[in-house]
């Protein structure tokens, strides 16, 4: 062992002992029971209806970009729920632990969470929400929509797409495992050095955090390669660059950021890993370590990551607002230019995350000006959306409600962001909950557009609309919760509350803390309406079946194929003639003109390799966290062996004949993403 572990270690189980399982903590027992019941609620029906084979054949081994996207989004929504529960626990602790006379229950002196447990909860809240909720959902949306918007059959590398999904899922599973086996990092989601070093964080918490992010970000990098290649190389004939839908443009820019930013995060975490596993001194407090190196490397990834998340949101806004204003998007070229301007500037602003850490006035000035520059292209975008709505025929469907509310959040978050970009102001409010309220406005804007996108594109993937009535209630309660919680939080920031406090010393904060807690209750109501929206929609699905264009005013290519989209996307590849192809076809009365005949389509075959790589990656991550070297080593060798094995398999997929397509097109409205495609594959002409 190169490092001093401060605890037992055995060759067979590494650092894992029975004492690692926190069975004496009632909160964790409750979380375990809840998770286990939720897991059983999924597993038992699958076993009861004998659907194991179906799940395995049609989902786990699928290389279909739509199914992979749906799995990404489900993963993200589940993780978002867990992140929300974390947020709820943080708020409840703070409202209980205000003032010296506040009572303490269980092991806590104030509130109900002891400091180390509270620290783990805010660390996992941030990690989950950014990397395992919002990132997978946006990746999933890009996966589903981009190939449809550019008229492609699938992603450029379907198998690698599935590998990306499973690596992301492994990261999420490692974080879930940390809840019940061992603990999670208590050093914040940013991993404050040198607190994350082994002497100060001797438990496995930081290792869980590090490997979960490391493994899932490899998945994100591979996905970025895949999406960029797809957009560059797989566009339908006529889909020139100046006709690319804005969502595809923003996904392209976002993945250029992802491709170039995530390797830096990989380096930052790998060097931390070297410190913790090999005993090096990159970020240590002594022997020549430099903790600012970590802070810089982390935020060189961290700030582009913010735009990695927000740019697809801007794309969603552009699509939804144009559709429900019945007008082409105002200022297409400026929109694209603004997107890439934001992506470019995103590389030159990272230091504004630590203005107060002694960079000096000139460096701060440079990054301050660069940060304020972001406001210009963002302003261009906001005006473009407003001019799109101006004199349009606006219908306030739920996606449009979410989008308009998102614009207001963007305004609040953006203006407070410009305030924070000024170092003089930042010196006053840094590390206060004012900053927290600011970036929650921005990330919630992303969440708002995510809900807009899920509701907007849901009928495309599943073939029926979501219930508007419960959807409106969901929107109203979620927006009210946001407004109540974060308005109060801005106020508390000005009153001097700093972030990450498990005990608050000032009793005069109590009223606003109670307001925040009320906001959380409203959020809980919104969870109810969210579930009810899905329950009612699925129950009444046969009443709400829809055609190719469920909204009636959609403009882009994805609305030209059936809803639900058949597994081959388009029976015949569309020839693109205009920027808003469907709107163009509608205007000339050609939107329902079908192809006159069908030709054979070449399709990729499902494969077990991605899910096996996922299992081995989990073995590797778990083995590294607990320092079970045989397990980590064998898993890594297994992954390499699988990749080499795959390079020897000559699998060219299968050919779907024109007659089969004609037959399936005839009954397309009864098909769904849930039905078995294996029968169709068996009927196909076989491998060629």
């Amino acid at each position, binding site marked *: 062992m190169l490092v001093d572990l401060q605890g037992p270690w055995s060759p067979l189980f590494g650092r894992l002992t029975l004492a690692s399982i926190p069975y004496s903590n009632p909160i964790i027992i409750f979380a375990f029971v809840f998770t286990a019941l939720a897991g059983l609620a999924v597993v038992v029906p699958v076993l009861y209806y004998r659907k194991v084979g179906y799940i395995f054949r049609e989902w786990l081994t699928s290389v279909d970009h739509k199914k992979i996207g749906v799995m990404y989004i489900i993963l993200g929504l589940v993780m978002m729920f867990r992140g929300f529960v974390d947020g709820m626990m943080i708020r409840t602790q703070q409202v209980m632990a205000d003032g010296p006379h506040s009572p303490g229950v269980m092991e806590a002196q104030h509130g109900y969470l002891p400091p180390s447990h509270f620290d783990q909860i805010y660390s996992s809240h941030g990690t989950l929400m950014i990397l395992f909720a919002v990132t997978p959902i946006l990746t999933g949306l890009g996966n589903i929509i981009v190939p449809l918007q550019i008229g492609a059959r699938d992603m450029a590398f379907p198998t690698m797409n599935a590998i990306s999904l499973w690596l992301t899922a492994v990261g999420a599973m490692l974080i879930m495992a940390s809840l019940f086996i061992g603990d999670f990092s208590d050093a914040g989601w940013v991993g404050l050095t040198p607190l994350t070093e082994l002497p100060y964080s001797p438990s496995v918490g930081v290792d869980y955090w590090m490997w979960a992010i490391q493994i899932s970000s490899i998945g994100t990098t591979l996905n970025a390669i895949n999406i960029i290649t797809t957009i560059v190389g797989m566009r339908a004939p006529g889909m020139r660059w100046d006709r690319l839908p804005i969502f595809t443009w923003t996904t392209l820019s976002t993945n250029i950021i992802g491709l170039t930013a995530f390797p830096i995060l990989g380096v930052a975490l790998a060097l931390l890993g070297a410190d913790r596993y090999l005993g090096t001194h990159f970020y240590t407090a002594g*022997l*020549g370590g430099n903790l600012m*190196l970590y802070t810089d490397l982390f935020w060189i990834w961290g700030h582009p990551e913010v735009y990695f998340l927000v740019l697809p949101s801007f794309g969603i806004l552009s699509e939804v607002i144009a559709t429900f204003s019945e007008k082409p998007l105002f200022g297409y070229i400026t929109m694209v230019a603004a997107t890439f301007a934001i992506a470019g500037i995103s590389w030159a602003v990272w230091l504004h995350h630590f203005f107060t850490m002694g960079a000096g006035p000139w460096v701060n000035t440079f990054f301050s000006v660069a940060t304020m520059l972001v406001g210009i292209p963002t302003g261009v975008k906001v005006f473009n959306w407003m001019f799109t709505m101006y004199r349009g025929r606006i219908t306030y469907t739920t996606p449009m409600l979410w989008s308009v509310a998102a614009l207001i959040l963007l305004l609040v978050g953006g203006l407070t962001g410009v305030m924070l970009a000024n170092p003089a102001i930042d010196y006053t409010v840094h590390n206060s909950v004012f900053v927290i309220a600011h970036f929650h406005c921005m990330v919630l804007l992303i969440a708002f557009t995510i809900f807009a996108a899920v509701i907007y594109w849901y009928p495309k993937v599943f073939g029926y609309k979501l219930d508007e009535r419960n959807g409106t209630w969901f929107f109203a309660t979620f927006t009210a919760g946001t407004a109540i919680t974060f308005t109060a939080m801005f106020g508390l920031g000005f009153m001097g509350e700093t972030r990450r406090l498990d005990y608050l010393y000032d009793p005069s904060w109590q009223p606003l803390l109670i307001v925040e807690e009320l906001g959380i209750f409203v959020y809980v109501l919104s969870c109810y309406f969210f579930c009810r929206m899905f329950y009612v929609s699925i129950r009444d699905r046969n009443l709400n079946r829809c055609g190719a264009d469920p909204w009636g005013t959609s403009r882009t290519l994805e609305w030209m194929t059936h809803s639900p989209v058949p597994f081959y996307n388009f029976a015949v590849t569309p020839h693109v003639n205009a920027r808003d192809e469907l709107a163009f076809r509608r205007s000339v009365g050609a939107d329902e003109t079908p192809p006159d005949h069908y030709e054979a389509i070449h399709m990729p075959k499902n494969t077990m390799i991605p899910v096996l790589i996922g299992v081995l990656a989990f073995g590797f991550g778990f083995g590294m966290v607990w320092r079970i070297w045989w397990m980590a080593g064998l898993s890594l060798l297994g992954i390499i062996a699988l990749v080499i094995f795959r390079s020897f398999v000559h699998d060219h997929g299968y050919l779907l004949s024109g007659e089969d397509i004609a037959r399936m097109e005839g009954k397309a409205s009864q098909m769904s993403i849930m039905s078995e495609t294996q029968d169709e594959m068996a009927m196909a002409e076989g491998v060629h």
Partner: protein
Amino acid sequence: MDAQVPRDGKLPPLWHYGHEGHDEISTKTLGFWLYMISDSLIFGGLFAAYGVLDQPMSFAGGPGPAQIMHPVAAFGQTLAVLTSVLAYSLGTLAMKTNNKAGVLLGIVGAMVLAVIFLGLEFNDFAVLYAHGATLQRSGFLAAFFILIATHGLHMMFGLLWMAVMLVQVGRYGLSKEIVMRLLNLRLFWQFQASVWVCVYIYVYLRGTFS
């Protein structure tokens, strides 16, 4: 910019029949170039870390660059990695005449030279360790070892890839798919040599004469 309906009322083509016409090889090559971009960012991050830690405060009283660098020893490694690329490229030239033996010979030559490179590097590390300049000694030495070892790991990965390609060329001949893999491997191999040139200049030459 948007399409207009022609005056005679005839519509432009709406559907594209037949094969989509996406070139599989150019798609895969683009994907590989994008992977190389992400890989170069990894080295960029490591070079940045080395630049930050290459200063007296981070020597922590241990040896600095002038004490541990030897430009002549590293020059041997430079020669090995560059001739390895030359051997591989001569091998890919043989593809033009469909000369399978020439391709195999080029790959074997590249592998031998890469093994020599790694042997020299290992020897270099062993000498440093014998003098107490270890990975754990200081922030500077950590940055030095991790940067060089990351490059070394890439070289080992390249060796493994070449071994696989030897088998595949032998088994499947110079098919379209195999040629594409060989060309991507050449890109990878040349990239490792380029990284080594940066290492040689930025770490060894700059270190020796600092």
